């Protein structure tokens, strides 16, 4: 019920909005305006539409989309925090392990209620408080007769007009009327067993859902005060299943001398999910005499005044039926199924919450220790909060600010997306942030607030969110198939900024720079970046590293090598050492003379093995001496570097001995063309010739 009312609110809001925004002629303020000529009104209306129709349509569309596939939840916004019903109280005691436990528990629960177990019902009693037990206690029976029927709603077949319903009587019992729970022994209660094979699929019809129908009949007394009218009415409003109608018709006839109360509970819903877990139940019953309101007259309405009985009143007055429900493995055995955990039920239902709710209504059923009622009552309170007589006038400015029309409302729903903002501040903030195609200005008003609405001419449709969301998976950001991983990185934002106290003054029209303010200016990285080398979009995970800031880009490394290779009068060994050294300097970016000692040692560490393998030790020594000649390194560094080189050499024994030939080959390679052209045997001769 409460939830139904809630949704009713939304619906009415939507219709109001349609009236208010698109057809403002019907608004309250318009009445004060003297009726101008017809065509004038029409022209004016035309202009109004011109200005506001398109954005309104867009926002209506966005509203619908956001309902279907929410991009974000309003309750997570700071200025909508009151929409968040959850408290963080549990967080302090939270442990990560709890999550696993919860899940495991849930799993166990879902698995266990198998169809092999029987349904055992133990009836505590039938309570009806309006009795005057002192008056006619002797001629009253202290028990009522209870009939339990299993209602099977089957799948509709082609020829059927409505779903076929089968009622299987499971038994009749005498149930004590208004028993005193202190007196009666628990073992003496009447109980009833529904066999498990009743829930097995029958041959002829595929059963859609099972429900229990309780029918209590009291004989000998006729009371037409119709105390339960209100409840019955409302409940029947919602439940318009054919089975229900049929049933009520059938019982109308027999109700002359006996009062009949009925209640229905769903055992398995149409998705074959178990709705009734083990536990104690109290079901509110309805009298059968009431004439059900026809489907045609059923309306959604909000119950604003407390005149009607709240649903829980039923339980204090009755009529209610109390029983204990148990799923047992065998007819007499103990319960195998876990005790009812409303949370679990809710979770398993979460995909079709509307349905559960309606089923609740139908039976007007309340579980005793139900948490769900808790939630429902809280929901109830939300719309009640801003129950001051706040009036908000929307004043639409268009056509060069000359014409205006206003509309008065007295709730805090956003006119475009029907979001209940609950507070004026939240409403204004929401309007500003979510509907930036308009400009909203807040003007205080004795009766509440006036909001000037005009078209934001500066709106350029630019996306101010993270551009990577759009780019990395084009067309994905608003997927309808549920949540999609949009970026490859997860940002953990720990930010507790100092927030200014929410104050309505921030929405007041500023005197200067109005246009400036309306520009969507967001600082930060609100654009897509590109790699400077390839012009490819920068992915979010590449944001942190500057991939193009190498001191030694590859082309430069290659360039220095080729440049040295161009020399014809520098021998290969020299070239090789020079190249190694150049790469080393380029990589580390040495800039000072006093870094050189350190640089040499680092060079030996990094390249020592390579120098030895390529047989370049002497050339390296030459390099060191040359550096010394330039007054860049000390002899101590030369000594140390060479000592380290020797040490590295000793650590590479295999090079030394096994790969002797290898070294020779590489040495020959080092010597380059000199060797290749000489062809080996001429080596000696030329050497001596060159010695001269």
């Amino acid at each position, binding site marked *: 019920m409460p939830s139904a009312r809630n949704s009713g609110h939304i619906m009415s809001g939507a219709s109001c909005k349609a009236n208010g925004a698109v057809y403002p002629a019907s608004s309250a303020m318009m009445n004060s305006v003297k009726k101008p000529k017809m065509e004038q009104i029409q022209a004016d209306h035309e202009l109004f539409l011109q200005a506001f129709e398109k954005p309104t349509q867009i926002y209506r569309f966005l509203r619908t989309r956001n309902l279907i596939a929410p991009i974000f939840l309003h309750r997570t916004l700071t200025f909508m925090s009151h929409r968040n019903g959850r408290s963080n109280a549990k967080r302090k005691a939270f442990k990560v392990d709890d999550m696993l436990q919860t899940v495991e528990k849930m799993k166990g629960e879902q698995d266990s209620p198998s169809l092999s177990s029987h349904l055992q019902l133990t009836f505590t009693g039938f309570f009806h408080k309006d009795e005057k037990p002192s008056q006619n206690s002797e001629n009253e029976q202290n028990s009522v007769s209870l009939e339990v029927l299993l209602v099977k709603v089957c799948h509709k077949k082609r020829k059927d007009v409505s779903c076929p319903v089968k009622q299987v009587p499971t038994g009749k019992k005498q149930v004590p009327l208004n028993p005193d729970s202190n007196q009666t022994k628990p073992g003496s209660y009447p109980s009833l067993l529904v066999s498990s094979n009743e829930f097995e699929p029958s041959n002829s019809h595929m059963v859609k859902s099972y429900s229990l129908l309780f029918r209590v009949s009291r004989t000998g007394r006729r009371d037409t005060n119709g105390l339960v009218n209100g409840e019955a009415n409302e409940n029947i409003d919602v439940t318009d299943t054919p089975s229900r109608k049929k049933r009520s018709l059938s019982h109308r006839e027999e109700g002359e001398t006996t009062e009949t109360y009925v209640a229905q509970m769903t055992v398995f819903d149409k998705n074959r999910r178990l709705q009734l877990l083990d536990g104690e139940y109290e079901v509110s019953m309805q009298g059968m005499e009431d004439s059900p309101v026809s489907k045609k007259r059923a309306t959604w309405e909000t119950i604003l005044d407390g005149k009607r009985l709240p649903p829980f009143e039923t339980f204090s007055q009755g009529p209610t039926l109390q029983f204990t429900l148990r799923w047992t493995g065998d007819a007499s055995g103990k319960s195998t199924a876990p005790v009812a955990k409303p949370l679990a039920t809710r979770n398993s239902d979460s995909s079709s919450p509307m349905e559960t709710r309606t089923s609740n209504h139908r039976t007007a059923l309340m579980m005793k220790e139900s948490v769900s009622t808790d939630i429902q009552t809280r929901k109830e309170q939300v719309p009640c909060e801003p129950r001051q007589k706040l009036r908000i006038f929307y004043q639409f400015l268009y056509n060069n600010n000359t014409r205006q029309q206003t509309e008065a409302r007295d709730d805090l729903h956003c006119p475009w997306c029907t979001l209940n903002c609950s507070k004026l501040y939240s409403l204004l903030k929401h309007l500003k942030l979510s509907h930036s195609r308009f400009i909203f200005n807040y003007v205080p008003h004795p009766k509440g607030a006036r909001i000037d609405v005009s078209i934001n001419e500066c709106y350029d449709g630019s996306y101010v969110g993270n551009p990577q969301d759009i780019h990395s998976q084009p067309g994905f950001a608003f997927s*309808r198939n549920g949540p999609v991983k949009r970026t490859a990185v997860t940002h953990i934002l720990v930010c507790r900024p100092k927030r200014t106290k929410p104050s309505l003054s921030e929405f007041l029209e500023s005197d200067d720079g109005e246009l400036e303010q309306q520009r969507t200016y967001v600082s930060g990285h609100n654009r897509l970046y590109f790699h400077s080398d390839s012009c490819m979009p920068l992915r979010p995970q590449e944001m942190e590293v500057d991939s193009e800031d190498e001191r030694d880009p590859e082309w430069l490394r290659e360039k220095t090598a080729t440049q040295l290779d161009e020399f*014809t009068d520098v021998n290969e060994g020299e070239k090789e050492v020079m190249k190694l050294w150049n790469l080393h300097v380029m990589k580390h970016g040495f800039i000072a003379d*006093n870094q050189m000692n350190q640089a040499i040692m680092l060079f030996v560490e990094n390249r020592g093995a390579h120098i030895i393998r390529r047989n370049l030790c002497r050339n390296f*020594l030459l390099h060191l001496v040359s550096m010394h000649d330039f007054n860049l390194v000390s002899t101590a560094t030369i000594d140390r570097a060479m000592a380290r080189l020797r040490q590295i050499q000793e650590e590479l024994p295999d090079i030394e001995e096994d790969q002797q030939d290898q070294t020779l080959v590489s*040495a*020959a390679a*080092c010597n380059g063309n000199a060797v290749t052209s000489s062809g080996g045997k001429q080596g000696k001769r030329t050497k001596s010739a060159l*010695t001269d």
Partner: protein
Amino acid sequence: MEETAAAAPAPSTGVTPPTPRPQPASFVPSRSLLEWRRRVKSEYMRLRQLKRLKKAEEVKTLFMSNRQKIEQQTNLLNSEWSKLRIQSIPLSTSGGALANKKMCTVEFGFPGFKAQAIAMRPLSTVAGIPFMYSWSPLQHNFMVEDETFLHNIPYMGDEVLEQDEAFLEELIDNYDGVHGDREGGFISDEIFKELVEALSQYSDHEEEEEEEEVTVKKDEERVMRRSAAEGSEENKAGAVTFIRRKRRSTAEVRDVSSSKKIPNEQIFTAIASMFPYKGTTEELKEKYKDLLEPPSPVKLPPLCTPNLDGPFAKSVQREQSLHSFHTLFCRRCFKYDCFLHPFHATPNVYKRKSKEIRMETEPCGVDCFLLQKGAKEFVDQNMLRSQRSRRRRRQQRPTSSTCAGPSGSPEEGKEGDSDHETTSSSEGNSRCQTPTKPHPGDEDGEQQACCVVQWSGAEESLFRVLHGTYFNNFCSIARLIGTKNCKEVYEFAVKEVLIHRVPLEDGGISPQKKKRKHRLWAKIQLKKDNSSNQVYNYQPCDHPDHPCDSSCPCVMTQNFCEKFCQCEHECQNRFPGCRCKTQCNTKQCPCYLAVRECDPDLCMTCGAADHWDSKAVSCKNCSIQRGLKKHLLLAPSDVAGWGTFIKEPVQKNEFISEYCGELISQDEADRRGRIYDKYMSSFLFNLNNVDFVVDATRKGNKIRFANHSVNPNCYAKVVMVNGDHRIGIFAKRAILQGEELFFDYRYSQADALKYVGIEREVDMA
């Protein structure tokens, strides 16, 4: 040229022994010349055709190899991709009840085939990005030479050229020529040689020469071809367009060893008349002889020594061994053949700042040469001499750093020695395949008291090199050579020193340092006043005979002398560095005042010389040299084209990035600027007004995309950084993250920048 053709027959007495009977030139000169010219022409054409084919072939193979490279890379990427876990795209998004349920149908003309249809699935649009010419990333300026040849005629759409026909002509006029123009008349050495070779066949036929010779020669030619490219440079008379520096030393002496067969005189005459710019007949002939010269297999240019680690290492003087290292090393960049400084000073004029040579007085082991008779005296005698020159010798260094005490490492050293001994000998064996000793001839000469020690060329060279540094520290030298012990080294030294006297320079006698701080301030101020934005490039000065006075180039260009100058450390024009203990970001710091970055070798207190590994340096005036740039991002600009955006917020005056690019001359900048103006985009940036311009068009870094604004958030400043002028871009105000960067391209109205074309015109008007 005409006269040379006429005079060609006259010097027929040239050294041409193989051509037996040189034809009398006066005898039907025109007919035979014509005939030869015809032959030259046809042969030339044929050769060129061959060349072209060969070139095409080369291009093809290169293309194929490149393709292969690309394919490899692609495969690599593909395999990487296949490993990546990617969320698949839910297909239902497009397949839903959307309107784009268009069908695409393929119909066949034949009745046998059914028409096929499939639903169209449109791809989502991808936003376009601004145009960008490719460029190479760079974090440091890169000096390039002038391009006097226009390599390509810039394409900028047909409209531009139609509109402005004069532009192209003017452009071409600016250059010495357009690449590829001369190809028709161009004759390279290789073609020349082949041409002569081909033509000589004619003459051979005519004169009935032996076929043999031709074939022999052909063989030679084939060998020669390899070296042809090498030697080509100097011989190219007029049309030297290639790389300037293929050689360290330009002086190349070519000994004309033996004059081989020189073909008929007439050939050269004909060629000379055909290609007049290639030189006279005589020149051509000389050149041919040059080309013919048999390339000795290990012939190397005079200053090139064989690899010291190679098998052909030979014994040379110290200067020769170190020549390559000395000449190629850039003392300013610490690199060999650096990208920025075309001229490198050689170190022989550098003076030792600290005389750190110390003599070992302790013997390094039981076999140390110092224990030998007479050794100590020899060392001392030499030391006396060196000590005289080294009055300000440094303190004794801790012994641990260099030479281990007598107890320290003799075993280790010995072990190493023996190790190397064996390896080198085995190396020798495997090398020469014969058990003969490398230096059998030297044995008698080197006969010393103890035993016969063979010194390989490499070892000898190495000794000389080290002796120049370590003097008589034979223990150290032996350790460094590795293959000889100190006794052997000593013995070799005794013999050697008689021949080569080690030149010892006179150490500078340092006068007392004067207090000259106040003078420095005055000088900086003076420079600032005088210069009026005149910034000149710095070149290290080198005038050994006189101190830095008004004739010193540094003084003349109003630059300070830097640590790279050859002048005294106490030179009055030297910048002494700062002694700040703060951040050096106010004018209290002399470096900052003089628009210099702190020199890590001069400013020892401000932190510019510390914390090499971390980015947190207390001195804020050394950001350019350390490359402490901010992370910049590239995105389409809010203004025009691409823009540079900053990732993290910066404060006012913080260094953002260096504006890097090619360092080009003003002339080159003028030439390039003309093209850039046409393109309406220029990355030119004046560095110092007379010398160089930074052009970020071809090479640069991300800051090159920063746009111009008259109300910018950055400013540019040319700073002297360790002798180089560099452009720093700094924050003009506090900048938030994600802001686009702008600086005023005309940061100094007068001269500093060549900005984009549009604005320049406005400015002129």
